[in-house]
């Protein structure tokens, strides 16, 4: 705004963009500064582990990696079941820096990858918005996306997850797509496809691109906006993009065989037909054309559509997978696939979440879309479609807020910059002499005589533009403030370290997870198998370096259900399961001492549900509820609940913590726990962390004398059963059955 020449404006833009980049990196560093440079959450631990594999063993070893540390009896073919984009990106960054004699630990590369890519996202957003409006709107959009909490939540330092680089790739792909569409350039179409390829390698959300771009093309066709440029851009993108996406082993032949990719194929076919007909039309008069092709376009389209439908019902094209289908039928996952519904990110979004993540942008978003409708060039159609679909998906599922955020930033920047265009424009009478008002301000002496003064009186004398500019500046400042506050307070905690505040305000760090994982790492044999709920699978393999039965990649529901059954059945039943799976240690998370609500007792019902889905005879959700339908852990808890492995391992010796006279109290469930001692006969307590959050049990060996472990335990314990009478043996037998 203050540049007198175009070159100055370019420099100003560069400086602003660099500043935005620095800002977006630095606002993501709260957790690193407060805690330490570690990988957060669950999924990133797997990404980190496979990146280490890539860095240590090389690319080809990584592609063919068979991971025998997860899904114990089965193992996991990592090369074929992972989106390798983020690992390869981090590996490449690591390699380049080492080649430049700048040896950085791979952990630090992984931790700081997302913040750096967020800076690139800001640049990509700038480019995209520049295509839609102009550079000043672009700068606003870049500033918004740089600090918007909706995006920061998935890209703080240490959050080494696919989304970190995927949003950058999403934006840059869309930018090249719009560029290709505008210019009709197959070069940009090819670039779109290349970045689409990168996106496919990075995140499963590539399906969004391969449906959004065809939708855009289709909308343009329906609006009668077919141009050769559209043909060139779309066809190049589709052909190269589809072929390249099939190179990713995890995707494989899906682009030819699943319903998610059929929209793109259909639009591709439609475009060919329309282009051919347009060519013929150019050689015929309108009248002849009518007679020859009346209804031909429509019938070909209908036949093609019917063919796709028939192929789907015939089974040649796979129907929608559950994960995508549950976006349309929002009750589907809860009913049929509890494992999808059990993830907290898959819940619908509440209104406050929109405001919390986007604040000012949320009310500006519809205004931006309104302006898009007003102009409605091809690229505005794209933004409108993106906004509609993105809003729907963000409303259905919390985690898809992430894909909506860039669109909201762009539309809001569009709206604000529209307003500022009007209210920051120099007044009409100044327009004639000098193009910029700032130069006029710096050198007032030169200009004053040339300006033809229109004299205003009273309230008209007051420059009313200030009445708009000042509030806008204020809300923008408030927005930045809100973003920083949200980032600092809500999104910058590494979930492996829990922080609490002491009375004097100093920070108290609860580090039970790493304590326990490190205990496992040092005190168990390298080939010991750990049984835990799937949430902790990645962290155990990553930090404890031990084999787990199930992990966060929930590809085998039956296996998870087996673990769920082992957790929710009585000891003797689950002992059999554990022995069959060579389990050495059982790990449970228990938050009742500290009030850590994300513990396994709260997740227990999902274990039961998932277990029941596969073993309806052994596990029944109903029996975990009291007669009044309550889920209790106190003395009213059902016998099934009290006998379950999860209950016993969680509350084992919990009452002792409160001494002989204390009242054991569960601080998460807010229920008193019965004082009666819990007997574990199939496992020994091996380790319990400082705050009782992680409890590790060692599964006992089979009894030397061939007794059942239950009998062996009661033989060792009770004195009064020394009398060898048939009657007592019979009651003992009965009590054993009771226990089950």
């Amino acid at each position: 705004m203050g540049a007198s020449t175009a070159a100055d404006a370019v420099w100003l833009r560069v400086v602003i963009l660099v500043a935005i980049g620095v800002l977006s990196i630095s606002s993501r560093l709260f957790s690193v500064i407060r805690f330490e440079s570690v990988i957060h959450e669950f999924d990133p631990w797997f990404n980190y582990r496979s990146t280490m594999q890539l860095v240590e063993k090389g690319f080809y070893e990584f592609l063919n990696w068979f991971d025998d540390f997860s899904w114990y009896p089965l193992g996991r073919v990592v090369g074929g079941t992972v989106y390798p984009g983020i690992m390869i990106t981090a590996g490449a960054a690591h390699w380049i820096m080492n080649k430049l004699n700048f040896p950085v630990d791979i952990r630090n590369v992984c931790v700081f990858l997302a913040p750096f890519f967020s800076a690139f996202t800001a640049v990509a957003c700038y480019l995209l918005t520049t295509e839609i409006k102009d550079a000043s709107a672009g700068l606003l959009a870049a500033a918004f996306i740089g600090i918007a909490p909706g995006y920061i939540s998935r890209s703080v330092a240490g959050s080494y997850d696919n989304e970190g680089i995927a949003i950058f790739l999403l934006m840059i792909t869309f930018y090249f797509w719009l560029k290709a569409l505008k210019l009709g350039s197959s070069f940009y179409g090819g670039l779109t496809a290349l970045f689409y390829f990168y996106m496919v390698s990075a995140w499963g959300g590539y399906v969004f691109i391969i449906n959004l771009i065809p939708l855009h093309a289709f909308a343009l066709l329906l609006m009668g906006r077919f141009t050769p440029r559209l043909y060139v851009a779309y066809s190049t993108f589709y052909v190269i993009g589809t072929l390249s996406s099939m190179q990713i082993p995890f995707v494989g032949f899906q682009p030819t065989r699943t319903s998610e990719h059929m929209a793109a194929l259909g639009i591709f076919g439609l475009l060919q037909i329309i282009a051919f007909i347009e060519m013929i039309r150019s050689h015929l008069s309108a009248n002849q054309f009518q007679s020859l092709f009346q209804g031909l376009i429509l019938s070909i389209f209908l036949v093609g559509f019917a063919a796709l439908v028939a192929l789907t019902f015939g089974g040649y094209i796979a129907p929608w997978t559950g994960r995508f289908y549950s976006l349309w039928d929002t009750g589907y996952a809860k009913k049929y696939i509890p494992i999808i519904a059990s993830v907290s990110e898959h819940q619908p979004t509440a209104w406050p979440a929109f405001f919390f993540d986007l604040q000012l942008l949320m009310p500006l978003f519809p205004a931006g879309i309104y302006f898009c409708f007003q102009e409605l060039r091809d690229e505005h159609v794209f933004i409108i479609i993106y906004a509609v679909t993105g809003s729907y998906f963000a409303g259905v599922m919390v985690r898809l807020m992430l894909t909506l955020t860039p669109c909201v930033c762009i539309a809001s920047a569009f709206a604000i910059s529209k307003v500022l265009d009007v209210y920051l424009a120099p007044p009409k009478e100044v327009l004639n002499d000098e193009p910029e008002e700032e130069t006029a301000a710096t050198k007032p002496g030169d200009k004053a005589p040339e300006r033809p003064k229109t004299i205003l009186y009273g309230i008209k004398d007051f420059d009313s533009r200030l009445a708009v500019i000042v509030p806008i500046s204020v809300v923008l400042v408030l927005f930045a403030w809100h973003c920083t506050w949200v980032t600092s307070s809500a999104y910058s905690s590494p979930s492996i370290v829990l922080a609490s505040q002491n009375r004097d305000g100093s920070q108290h760090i609860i580090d039970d997870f790493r304590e326990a994982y490190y205990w496992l790492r040092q005190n168990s044999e390298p080939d010991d198998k750990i049984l835990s709920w799937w949430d902790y699978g990645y962290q155990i393999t990553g930090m404890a370096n031990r084999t787990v039965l199930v992990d966060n990649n929930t590809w085998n529901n039956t296996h998870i259900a087996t673990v769920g059954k082992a957790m929710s059945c009585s000891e003797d039943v689950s002992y059999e399961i554990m022995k069959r799976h060579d389990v050495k240690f059982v790990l449970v998370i228990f938050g009742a001492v500290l009030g850590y609500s994300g513990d396994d007792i709260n997740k227990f019902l999902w274990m039961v549900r998932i277990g029941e889905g596969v073993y309806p005879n052994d596990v029944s959700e109903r029996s975990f509820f009291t007669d009044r339908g309550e889920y209790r852990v106190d003395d009213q808890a059902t016998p099934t609940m009290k006998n379950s492995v999860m209950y016993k391992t969680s509350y084992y010796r919990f009452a002792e913590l409160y001494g002989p006279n204390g009242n054991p109290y569960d601080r998460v469930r807010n229920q008193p726990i019965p004082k009666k001692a819990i007997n574990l006969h199939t496992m020994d307590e091996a380790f319990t962390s400082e705050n009782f959050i992680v409890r590790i049990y060692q599964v006992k060996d089979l009894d030397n004398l061939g007794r059942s472990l239950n009998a062996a335990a009661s033989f060792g314990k009770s004195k009064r059963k020394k009398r060898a009478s048939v009657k007592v043996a019979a009651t003992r037998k009965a009590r054993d059955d009771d226990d089950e």
Partner: protein
Amino acid sequence: TQTQLVTRLWSGYTNSTPQLLRLIDAYLAAVMLSGAIQFVYVLLVGTFPYNSFLSGFIASVGAFILAANLRMQLNGANEFYSLSPEGAFAEFIFCSLVFYGFVVNFLG
């Protein structure tokens, strides 16, 4: 009248299409033929090395598309912003390099 229309179409095409575009059209026809042959072969024999079939068939489709793009860009009747014939040809070469790279990689 249908045959009449088709002959008129043909004459219109031969009269108004420049040599270069007709050359491209011949190439398009050849590529389309190769794709059709591959598809018929797959229908007869089955899709066992599916990736080989896909890469071969998509190679035909892609070659067709890239040449059709070039044809559209060279066609004077279409409006393309600031694109010279040399530029269009350079784009064609770029896309072809990328595309056939992927084809060869996918051939297996």
